[in-house]
Protein backbone atom coordinates (compact mmCIF):
# COMPACT_ATOMS: atom_id res chain seq x y z
CA UNK A 1 0.00 0.00 0.00
CA UNK A 2 2.77 2.41 0.99
CA UNK A 3 4.45 1.68 -2.36
CA UNK A 4 1.35 2.64 -4.30
CA UNK A 5 1.03 5.90 -2.39
CA UNK A 6 4.72 6.57 -2.98
CA UNK A 7 4.14 5.84 -6.66
CA UNK A 8 1.26 8.30 -6.87
CA UNK A 9 3.40 10.88 -5.12
CA UNK A 10 6.29 10.24 -7.52
CA UNK A 11 3.96 10.53 -10.51
CA UNK A 12 2.55 13.78 -9.16
CA UNK A 13 5.97 15.35 -8.68
CA UNK A 14 7.24 14.12 -12.04
CA UNK A 15 4.31 15.76 -13.77
CA UNK A 16 4.12 19.04 -11.85
CA UNK A 17 7.86 19.62 -12.08
CA UNK A 18 7.78 19.12 -15.90
CA UNK A 19 10.63 16.63 -15.53
CA UNK A 20 12.58 16.91 -18.79
CA UNK A 21 13.44 13.24 -18.99
CA UNK A 22 9.83 12.25 -18.35
CA UNK A 23 8.69 14.50 -21.18
CA UNK A 24 11.26 13.04 -23.48
CA UNK A 25 10.36 9.41 -22.89
CA UNK A 26 6.61 10.13 -22.83
CA UNK A 27 6.80 11.92 -26.17
CA UNK A 28 8.89 9.07 -27.57
CA UNK A 29 6.32 6.55 -26.35
CA UNK A 30 3.59 8.51 -28.08
CA UNK A 31 5.59 9.01 -31.23
CA UNK A 32 6.46 5.33 -31.59
CA UNK A 33 3.01 4.07 -30.70
CA UNK A 34 1.02 6.57 -32.76
CA UNK A 35 3.20 5.94 -35.82
CA UNK A 36 2.78 2.20 -35.38
CA UNK A 37 -0.96 2.71 -34.89
CA UNK A 38 -1.36 4.68 -38.12
CA UNK A 39 0.60 2.13 -40.14
CA UNK A 40 -1.15 -0.85 -38.55
CA UNK A 41 -4.58 0.75 -39.09
CA UNK A 42 -3.83 1.41 -42.75
CA UNK A 43 -3.12 -2.29 -43.15
CA UNK A 44 -5.61 -3.82 -40.74
CA UNK A 45 -8.78 -1.84 -41.45
CA UNK A 46 -8.97 -2.49 -45.21
CA UNK A 47 -7.89 -6.08 -44.56
CA UNK A 48 -10.58 -6.67 -41.92
CA UNK A 49 -13.19 -5.06 -44.15
CA UNK A 50 -12.12 -7.04 -47.20
CA UNK A 51 -12.39 -10.25 -45.19
CA UNK A 52 -15.95 -9.29 -44.21
CA UNK A 53 -17.06 -8.42 -47.74
CA UNK A 54 -15.31 -10.95 -49.90
CA UNK A 55 -15.52 -14.73 -49.86
CA UNK A 56 -12.49 -16.47 -51.28
CA UNK A 57 -10.63 -19.70 -50.94
CA UNK A 58 -8.23 -18.95 -48.08
CA UNK A 59 -10.52 -16.56 -46.20
CA UNK A 60 -11.13 -18.89 -43.24
CA UNK A 61 -7.43 -19.67 -43.05
CA UNK A 62 -6.45 -15.99 -43.02
CA UNK A 63 -8.98 -15.23 -40.28
CA UNK A 64 -7.62 -18.11 -38.18
CA UNK A 65 -4.09 -16.91 -38.83
CA UNK A 66 -4.94 -13.39 -37.66
CA UNK A 67 -6.55 -14.75 -34.49
CA UNK A 68 -3.54 -16.97 -33.84
CA UNK A 69 -1.10 -14.10 -34.34
CA UNK A 70 -3.04 -12.12 -31.73
CA UNK A 71 -2.04 -14.71 -29.17
CA UNK A 72 1.66 -14.70 -30.03
CA UNK A 73 3.77 -13.35 -27.13
CA UNK A 74 5.26 -9.96 -28.05
CA UNK A 75 8.69 -11.21 -26.93
CA UNK A 76 8.63 -13.78 -29.73
CA UNK A 77 7.77 -11.08 -32.25
CA UNK A 78 10.55 -8.98 -30.76
CA UNK A 79 13.05 -11.80 -31.20
CA UNK A 80 11.99 -12.41 -34.80
CA UNK A 81 12.27 -8.71 -35.63
CA UNK A 82 15.64 -8.62 -33.84
CA UNK A 83 16.97 -11.51 -35.93
CA UNK A 84 15.70 -9.92 -39.14
CA UNK A 85 17.09 -6.47 -38.37
CA UNK A 86 20.36 -7.60 -36.77
CA UNK A 87 23.40 -6.50 -38.73
CA UNK A 88 24.08 -10.19 -39.32
CA UNK A 89 20.45 -10.74 -40.41
CA UNK A 90 18.77 -10.36 -43.81
CA UNK A 91 17.87 -6.69 -43.31
CA UNK A 92 21.05 -5.76 -41.45
CA UNK A 93 22.19 -3.33 -44.15
CA UNK A 94 19.27 -1.05 -43.30
CA UNK A 95 20.92 -0.50 -39.91
CA UNK A 96 17.56 -0.22 -38.15
CA UNK A 97 18.23 -2.26 -35.01
CA UNK A 98 18.08 -0.27 -31.75
CA UNK A 99 16.24 2.63 -33.38
CA UNK A 100 12.68 3.88 -32.86
CA UNK A 101 11.93 2.57 -36.37
CA UNK A 102 12.67 -0.97 -35.21
CA UNK A 103 10.27 -0.47 -32.30
CA UNK A 104 7.61 0.79 -34.69
CA UNK A 105 8.06 -2.27 -36.90
CA UNK A 106 7.66 -4.62 -33.92
CA UNK A 107 4.57 -2.79 -32.69
CA UNK A 108 2.99 -2.81 -36.14
CA UNK A 109 3.39 -6.59 -36.24
CA UNK A 110 1.95 -6.92 -32.74
CA UNK A 111 -1.14 -4.74 -33.18
CA UNK A 112 -2.09 -5.29 -36.83
CA UNK A 113 -3.77 -8.64 -36.03
CA UNK A 114 -5.58 -7.09 -33.05
CA UNK A 115 -7.01 -4.25 -35.11
CA UNK A 116 -7.77 -6.48 -38.10
CA UNK A 117 -9.64 -8.97 -35.95
CA UNK A 118 -11.82 -6.39 -34.19
CA UNK A 119 -12.36 -4.51 -37.46
CA UNK A 120 -13.41 -7.73 -39.16
CA UNK A 121 -16.00 -8.44 -36.46
CA UNK A 122 -17.47 -4.95 -36.68
CA UNK A 123 -17.45 -4.90 -40.46
CA UNK A 124 -19.12 -8.29 -40.64
CA UNK A 125 -22.11 -6.96 -38.70
CA UNK A 126 -22.33 -3.84 -40.81
CA UNK A 127 -22.03 -5.86 -44.01
CA UNK A 128 -24.96 -8.05 -42.92
CA UNK A 129 -26.96 -4.83 -42.51
CA UNK A 130 -25.89 -3.27 -45.82
CA UNK A 131 -25.52 -6.39 -47.94
CA UNK A 132 -28.86 -6.29 -49.78
CA UNK A 133 -28.73 -2.58 -50.50
CA UNK A 134 -25.16 -2.52 -51.77
CA UNK A 135 -25.73 -5.59 -53.96
CA UNK A 136 -28.94 -4.10 -55.32
CA UNK A 137 -27.16 -0.84 -56.16
CA UNK A 138 -24.71 -2.88 -58.20
CA UNK A 139 -21.69 -1.51 -56.30
CA UNK A 140 -18.13 -2.53 -57.05
CA UNK A 141 -15.97 -4.33 -54.42
CA UNK A 142 -14.05 -1.16 -53.82
CA UNK A 143 -17.20 0.93 -53.34
CA UNK A 144 -18.47 -1.62 -50.81
CA UNK A 145 -15.24 -1.49 -48.80
CA UNK A 146 -15.15 2.31 -48.83
CA UNK A 147 -18.80 2.54 -47.77
CA UNK A 148 -18.32 0.09 -44.91
CA UNK A 149 -15.17 1.81 -43.65
CA UNK A 150 -16.84 5.20 -43.81
CA UNK A 151 -20.07 4.18 -42.09
CA UNK A 152 -18.39 1.86 -39.60
CA UNK A 153 -15.74 4.37 -38.59
CA UNK A 154 -16.89 4.59 -35.00
CA UNK A 155 -16.43 0.84 -34.57
CA UNK A 156 -13.12 1.03 -36.38
CA UNK A 157 -12.04 3.71 -33.94
CA UNK A 158 -12.69 1.25 -31.12
CA UNK A 159 -10.55 -1.30 -32.94
CA UNK A 160 -7.75 1.24 -33.36
CA UNK A 161 -7.93 2.25 -29.69
CA UNK A 162 -7.61 -1.40 -28.68
CA UNK A 163 -4.47 -1.51 -30.80
CA UNK A 164 -3.21 1.68 -29.21
CA UNK A 165 -3.74 0.26 -25.72
CA UNK A 166 -1.80 -2.85 -26.58
CA UNK A 167 1.05 -0.94 -28.23
CA UNK A 168 1.57 1.78 -25.61
CA UNK A 169 1.81 -0.78 -22.82
CA UNK A 170 4.05 -3.21 -24.68
CA UNK A 171 7.51 -3.81 -23.22
CA UNK A 172 8.89 -7.24 -24.16
CA UNK A 173 9.34 -6.74 -27.90
CA UNK A 174 10.48 -3.12 -27.88
CA UNK A 175 12.99 -3.88 -25.15
CA UNK A 176 14.67 -6.40 -27.47
CA UNK A 177 14.54 -4.44 -30.73
CA UNK A 178 14.94 -0.98 -29.21
CA UNK A 179 17.51 -1.84 -26.56
CA UNK A 180 16.16 0.70 -24.04
CA UNK A 181 18.97 3.13 -24.92
CA UNK A 182 18.78 6.34 -22.94
CA UNK A 183 17.75 9.32 -25.11
CA UNK A 184 17.32 7.10 -28.16
CA UNK A 185 14.93 4.23 -27.59
CA UNK A 186 13.91 4.52 -23.96
CA UNK A 187 10.14 4.74 -23.64
CA UNK A 188 7.80 4.67 -20.67
CA UNK A 189 7.41 0.91 -20.51
CA UNK A 190 11.11 0.10 -20.81
CA UNK A 191 11.90 2.81 -18.25
CA UNK A 192 9.41 1.17 -15.89
CA UNK A 193 11.12 -2.20 -16.37
CA UNK A 194 14.48 -0.55 -15.72
CA UNK A 195 13.39 1.21 -12.52
CA UNK A 196 11.75 -1.98 -11.27
CA UNK A 197 15.08 -3.71 -11.85
CA UNK A 198 16.81 -1.08 -9.77
CA UNK A 199 14.29 -1.65 -7.00
CA UNK A 200 12.98 1.89 -7.28
CA UNK A 201 9.36 0.84 -7.09
CA UNK A 202 8.06 4.33 -6.38
CA UNK A 203 9.55 5.78 -9.56
CA UNK A 204 8.48 2.72 -11.57
CA UNK A 205 4.92 3.06 -10.30
CA UNK A 206 5.03 6.79 -10.89
CA UNK A 207 5.96 6.19 -14.53
CA UNK A 208 3.19 3.59 -14.67
CA UNK A 209 0.65 6.16 -13.53
CA UNK A 210 1.94 8.61 -16.12
CA UNK A 211 1.48 5.87 -18.73
CA UNK A 212 -2.11 5.28 -17.63
CA UNK A 213 -2.69 9.03 -17.71
CA UNK A 214 -1.41 9.31 -21.27
CA UNK A 215 -3.57 6.39 -22.38
CA UNK A 216 -6.65 8.02 -20.82
CA UNK A 217 -5.89 11.40 -22.38
CA UNK A 218 -5.40 9.88 -25.85
CA UNK A 219 -8.63 7.89 -25.56
CA UNK A 220 -10.62 10.91 -24.38
CA UNK A 221 -9.10 13.12 -27.07
CA UNK A 222 -10.02 10.70 -29.83
CA UNK A 223 -13.53 10.18 -28.47
CA UNK A 224 -14.06 13.91 -28.12
CA UNK A 225 -12.90 14.42 -31.70
CA UNK A 226 -15.33 11.81 -32.99
CA UNK A 227 -18.18 13.28 -30.95
CA UNK A 228 -17.63 16.83 -32.21
CA UNK A 229 -17.82 15.37 -35.64
CA UNK A 230 -21.11 13.64 -34.90
CA UNK A 231 -22.75 16.79 -33.58
CA UNK A 232 -21.45 18.81 -36.47
CA UNK A 233 -22.41 16.60 -39.32
CA UNK A 234 -24.99 14.14 -38.10
Amino acid at each position, binding site marked *: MIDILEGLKAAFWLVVSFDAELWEIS*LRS*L*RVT*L*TALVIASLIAIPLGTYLAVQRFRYRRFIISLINALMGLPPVVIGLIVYILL*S*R*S*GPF*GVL*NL*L*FTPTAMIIAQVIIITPVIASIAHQAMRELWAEYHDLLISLNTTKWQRIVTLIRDGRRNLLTAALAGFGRAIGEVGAIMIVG*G*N*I*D*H*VTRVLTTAIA*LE*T*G*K*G*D*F*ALALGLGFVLIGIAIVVNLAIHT*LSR*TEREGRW
Partner: protein
Amino acid sequence: MKKLMVTAAAVLWSQCAMADEMRLAVTTSFDNSGLSEVLLPAIKADLDIDLQLLVVGTGQALKLGEAGDVDAVLVHSKAAEDTFVAAGHGTHRREIMYNDFVLIGPKADGADTANATSAADAFARVASAEAAFVSRGDDSGTHKAELGIWSSAGLEVGGFGSWYHAVGAGMGAALNTAAGLDAYIFADRASWLNFGNKSGLALTYSGDPALFNQYAFLPVDPAKNANIRSDLAMKLEGWLTSRRAADLINGYEINGEPLFVFNAVVQ
Protein backbone atom coordinates in the same frame (compact mmCIF):
# COMPACT_ATOMS: atom_id res chain seq x y z
CA MET B 1 -8.62 21.25 -34.38
CA LYS B 2 -6.74 20.00 -37.44
CA LYS B 3 -4.12 22.71 -36.95
CA LEU B 4 -3.67 21.61 -33.37
CA MET B 5 -3.12 18.02 -34.45
CA VAL B 6 -0.61 19.03 -37.11
CA THR B 7 1.32 21.02 -34.51
CA ALA B 8 1.21 18.10 -32.10
CA ALA B 9 2.48 15.78 -34.83
CA ALA B 10 5.27 18.20 -35.71
CA VAL B 11 6.40 18.32 -32.09
CA LEU B 12 6.23 14.54 -31.78
CA TRP B 13 8.16 13.71 -34.91
CA SER B 14 10.75 16.46 -34.94
CA GLN B 15 14.31 15.20 -34.88
CA CYS B 16 17.51 16.86 -33.84
CA ALA B 17 21.00 16.48 -35.25
CA MET B 18 23.31 14.04 -33.51
CA ALA B 19 27.02 13.75 -32.83
CA ASP B 20 28.88 10.51 -33.64
CA GLU B 21 26.96 7.58 -32.25
CA MET B 22 28.53 4.47 -30.85
CA ARG B 23 26.84 1.45 -29.36
CA LEU B 24 28.26 -0.30 -26.36
CA ALA B 25 26.70 -3.36 -24.78
CA VAL B 26 27.25 -3.25 -21.01
CA THR B 27 26.16 -5.46 -18.16
CA THR B 28 23.26 -4.66 -15.92
CA SER B 29 25.57 -4.46 -12.93
CA PHE B 30 27.67 -1.76 -14.59
CA ASP B 31 24.62 0.33 -15.41
CA ASN B 32 23.00 -0.20 -12.02
CA SER B 33 26.13 1.13 -10.33
CA GLY B 34 25.35 4.60 -11.66
CA LEU B 35 28.93 5.03 -12.91
CA SER B 36 27.67 5.44 -16.48
CA GLU B 37 25.92 8.64 -15.45
CA VAL B 38 29.34 10.07 -14.59
CA LEU B 39 31.24 8.65 -17.55
CA LEU B 40 28.77 9.33 -20.38
CA PRO B 41 28.71 13.14 -20.07
CA ALA B 42 32.52 13.18 -19.79
CA ILE B 43 32.83 11.03 -22.93
CA LYS B 44 30.45 13.34 -24.75
CA ALA B 45 32.45 16.37 -23.65
CA ASP B 46 35.91 14.94 -24.40
CA LEU B 47 35.27 12.84 -27.52
CA ASP B 48 31.94 14.21 -28.86
CA ILE B 49 30.60 10.67 -28.96
CA ASP B 50 27.00 9.88 -28.09
CA LEU B 51 27.58 6.59 -26.36
CA GLN B 52 24.44 4.46 -26.57
CA LEU B 53 24.35 1.86 -23.83
CA LEU B 54 22.56 -1.45 -24.34
CA VAL B 55 22.09 -2.71 -20.84
CA VAL B 56 21.85 -6.49 -20.90
CA GLY B 57 23.36 -9.57 -19.25
CA THR B 58 26.92 -10.64 -20.16
CA GLY B 59 25.55 -13.52 -22.26
CA GLN B 60 23.33 -11.26 -24.32
CA ALA B 61 26.03 -8.56 -24.53
CA LEU B 62 28.48 -11.01 -26.11
CA LYS B 63 25.70 -12.28 -28.38
CA LEU B 64 25.06 -8.73 -29.61
CA GLY B 65 28.78 -8.36 -30.26
CA GLU B 66 28.86 -11.65 -32.11
CA ALA B 67 26.01 -10.47 -34.37
CA GLY B 68 27.86 -7.21 -34.98
CA ASP B 69 24.93 -5.22 -33.60
CA VAL B 70 27.14 -3.23 -31.22
CA ASP B 71 30.55 -1.65 -31.71
CA ALA B 72 32.07 -2.90 -28.46
CA VAL B 73 31.15 -4.66 -25.23
CA LEU B 74 32.05 -3.91 -21.61
CA VAL B 75 31.51 -7.06 -19.55
CA HIS B 76 32.91 -9.04 -16.64
CA SER B 77 33.35 -12.74 -17.31
CA LYS B 78 36.91 -13.58 -18.26
CA ALA B 79 36.35 -17.10 -19.59
CA ALA B 80 33.50 -16.04 -21.86
CA GLU B 81 35.51 -12.99 -22.99
CA ASP B 82 38.52 -15.13 -23.93
CA THR B 83 36.27 -17.44 -25.95
CA PHE B 84 34.77 -14.38 -27.64
CA VAL B 85 38.17 -13.07 -28.70
CA ALA B 86 39.44 -16.54 -29.65
CA ALA B 87 36.42 -17.03 -31.93
CA GLY B 88 37.36 -13.81 -33.71
CA HIS B 89 34.29 -11.84 -32.66
CA GLY B 90 36.37 -9.26 -30.83
CA THR B 91 39.72 -7.80 -31.82
CA HIS B 92 41.19 -7.96 -28.29
CA ARG B 93 40.38 -7.77 -24.58
CA ARG B 94 41.42 -4.76 -22.49
CA GLU B 95 40.99 -4.75 -18.72
CA ILE B 96 39.61 -1.46 -17.41
CA MET B 97 38.65 -1.73 -13.76
CA TYR B 98 37.22 -3.99 -11.12
CA ASN B 99 34.70 -3.88 -8.36
CA ASP B 100 33.73 -6.73 -6.08
CA PHE B 101 30.92 -9.13 -5.45
CA VAL B 102 29.29 -9.37 -2.07
CA LEU B 103 27.03 -11.82 -0.31
CA ILE B 104 23.70 -10.31 0.70
CA GLY B 105 21.40 -12.04 3.15
CA PRO B 106 18.70 -11.59 5.75
CA LYS B 107 19.71 -9.22 8.57
CA ALA B 108 19.48 -12.11 11.07
CA ASP B 109 22.11 -14.02 9.00
CA GLY B 110 20.79 -17.45 9.99
CA ALA B 111 23.66 -19.23 8.16
CA ASP B 112 26.25 -17.14 10.07
CA THR B 113 28.09 -16.10 6.92
CA ALA B 114 29.46 -12.98 8.59
CA ASN B 115 32.04 -15.13 10.39
CA ALA B 116 33.07 -17.07 7.29
CA THR B 117 36.76 -17.30 6.52
CA SER B 118 36.41 -17.11 2.76
CA ALA B 119 33.80 -16.66 0.05
CA ALA B 120 33.74 -20.44 -0.47
CA ASP B 121 33.25 -20.94 3.29
CA ALA B 122 30.36 -18.43 3.34
CA PHE B 123 28.68 -20.30 0.50
CA ALA B 124 29.23 -23.63 2.22
CA ARG B 125 27.56 -22.25 5.36
CA VAL B 126 24.49 -21.21 3.34
CA ALA B 127 24.32 -24.66 1.75
CA SER B 128 24.64 -26.58 5.01
CA ALA B 129 22.00 -24.39 6.65
CA GLU B 130 19.87 -24.86 3.51
CA ALA B 131 18.98 -21.20 3.86
CA ALA B 132 16.98 -19.72 0.99
CA PHE B 133 19.32 -18.54 -1.78
CA VAL B 134 18.41 -16.63 -4.93
CA SER B 135 20.61 -17.14 -8.00
CA ARG B 136 20.50 -14.99 -11.14
CA GLY B 137 20.38 -18.16 -13.21
CA ASP B 138 20.64 -16.14 -16.43
CA ASP B 139 24.15 -16.96 -17.65
CA SER B 140 25.27 -13.43 -16.78
CA GLY B 141 28.75 -12.54 -15.52
CA THR B 142 27.49 -12.42 -11.95
CA HIS B 143 25.82 -15.79 -12.37
CA LYS B 144 29.02 -17.30 -13.73
CA ALA B 145 31.02 -15.86 -10.82
CA GLU B 146 28.51 -17.32 -8.37
CA LEU B 147 28.79 -20.76 -9.96
CA GLY B 148 32.58 -20.48 -9.76
CA ILE B 149 32.41 -19.96 -6.00
CA TRP B 150 30.03 -22.88 -5.46
CA SER B 151 32.43 -25.15 -7.29
CA SER B 152 35.46 -23.80 -5.35
CA ALA B 153 33.49 -24.75 -2.21
CA GLY B 154 33.22 -28.25 -3.68
CA LEU B 155 29.45 -28.02 -4.10
CA GLU B 156 27.33 -29.01 -7.08
CA VAL B 157 24.45 -26.60 -7.84
CA GLY B 158 22.55 -29.32 -9.68
CA GLY B 159 22.15 -31.27 -6.46
CA PHE B 160 20.69 -28.43 -4.39
CA GLY B 161 17.23 -28.71 -2.89
CA SER B 162 14.31 -26.34 -3.06
CA TRP B 163 16.13 -23.69 -1.01
CA TYR B 164 18.11 -22.74 -4.14
CA HIS B 165 16.04 -20.47 -6.41
CA ALA B 166 17.45 -19.89 -9.89
CA VAL B 167 15.22 -17.01 -11.03
CA GLY B 168 16.61 -16.37 -14.51
CA ALA B 169 16.43 -12.60 -14.13
CA GLY B 170 18.56 -9.46 -14.08
CA MET B 171 20.33 -8.23 -10.93
CA GLY B 172 17.56 -5.86 -9.89
CA ALA B 173 14.79 -8.36 -10.40
CA ALA B 174 16.78 -11.04 -8.56
CA LEU B 175 17.40 -8.64 -5.64
CA ASN B 176 13.66 -7.90 -5.55
CA THR B 177 13.01 -11.63 -5.35
CA ALA B 178 15.57 -12.10 -2.59
CA ALA B 179 13.99 -9.23 -0.65
CA GLY B 180 10.63 -10.93 -1.00
CA LEU B 181 11.93 -14.34 0.08
CA ASP B 182 14.29 -12.97 2.76
CA ALA B 183 16.98 -15.01 1.01
CA TYR B 184 20.75 -14.89 0.49
CA ILE B 185 21.90 -13.58 -2.86
CA PHE B 186 25.22 -13.07 -4.61
CA ALA B 187 25.41 -9.56 -6.05
CA ASP B 188 27.88 -6.98 -7.22
CA ARG B 189 28.51 -4.24 -4.65
CA ALA B 190 27.42 -1.44 -6.96
CA SER B 191 24.01 -2.91 -7.71
CA TRP B 192 23.51 -3.61 -4.02
CA LEU B 193 24.39 -0.08 -2.90
CA ASN B 194 22.15 1.50 -5.52
CA PHE B 195 19.29 -0.91 -4.92
CA GLY B 196 16.23 0.87 -3.58
CA ASN B 197 14.20 -2.00 -2.13
CA LYS B 198 16.62 -3.39 0.49
CA SER B 199 13.76 -4.46 2.76
CA GLY B 200 15.12 -6.90 5.42
CA LEU B 201 18.40 -7.57 3.62
CA ALA B 202 21.95 -6.61 4.58
CA LEU B 203 25.50 -7.23 3.38
CA THR B 204 26.67 -10.33 5.24
CA TYR B 205 30.04 -11.21 3.69
CA SER B 206 32.61 -9.48 1.46
CA GLY B 207 36.34 -8.90 1.06
CA ASP B 208 37.73 -12.18 -0.31
CA PRO B 209 39.98 -11.40 -3.35
CA ALA B 210 38.18 -14.28 -5.04
CA LEU B 211 35.24 -11.91 -5.23
CA PHE B 212 36.98 -9.33 -7.38
CA ASN B 213 34.99 -8.62 -10.50
CA GLN B 214 37.12 -7.58 -13.46
CA TYR B 215 35.53 -5.48 -16.18
CA ALA B 216 37.03 -5.63 -19.66
CA PHE B 217 36.44 -3.69 -22.87
CA LEU B 218 36.21 -5.72 -26.11
CA PRO B 219 35.94 -3.95 -29.47
CA VAL B 220 33.90 -5.96 -31.98
CA ASP B 221 35.71 -7.17 -35.08
CA PRO B 222 34.99 -4.49 -37.74
CA ALA B 223 35.19 -7.13 -40.47
CA LYS B 224 31.71 -8.30 -39.43
CA ASN B 225 29.93 -5.46 -41.23
CA ALA B 226 30.47 -1.99 -42.59
CA ASN B 227 28.40 -0.29 -39.90
CA ILE B 228 30.69 -1.14 -37.01
CA ARG B 229 32.39 2.01 -35.79
CA SER B 230 35.69 0.51 -34.75
CA ASP B 231 37.30 3.96 -35.05
CA LEU B 232 35.03 5.19 -32.25
CA ALA B 233 35.64 2.01 -30.27
CA MET B 234 39.38 2.67 -30.42
CA LYS B 235 38.90 6.27 -29.34
CA LEU B 236 36.71 5.13 -26.46
CA GLU B 237 39.24 2.50 -25.40
CA GLY B 238 41.92 5.17 -25.34
CA TRP B 239 39.73 7.36 -23.17
CA LEU B 240 38.66 4.55 -20.79
CA THR B 241 42.31 3.74 -20.10
CA SER B 242 43.36 7.38 -19.67
CA ARG B 243 44.21 9.27 -16.45
CA ARG B 244 40.98 11.22 -16.82
CA ALA B 245 38.89 8.03 -16.73
CA ALA B 246 41.01 6.68 -13.87
CA ASP B 247 40.20 9.73 -11.74
CA LEU B 248 36.49 9.54 -12.49
CA ILE B 249 36.31 5.78 -11.85
CA ASN B 250 38.37 5.79 -8.64
CA GLY B 251 36.53 8.87 -7.40
CA TYR B 252 33.06 7.43 -7.86
CA GLU B 253 31.39 6.77 -4.51
CA ILE B 254 28.01 5.73 -3.24
CA ASN B 255 27.21 6.72 0.36
CA GLY B 256 30.90 7.55 0.81
CA GLU B 257 32.04 4.11 -0.35
CA PRO B 258 34.25 3.83 -3.41
CA LEU B 259 32.98 1.15 -5.78
CA PHE B 260 35.48 0.65 -8.58
CA VAL B 261 39.22 0.32 -8.78
CA PHE B 262 40.79 1.46 -12.04
CA ASN B 263 43.42 -1.10 -13.14
CA ALA B 264 43.96 -0.57 -16.86
CA VAL B 265 47.54 -0.58 -18.02
CA VAL B 266 48.11 3.00 -19.17
CA GLN B 267 50.17 3.02 -22.34
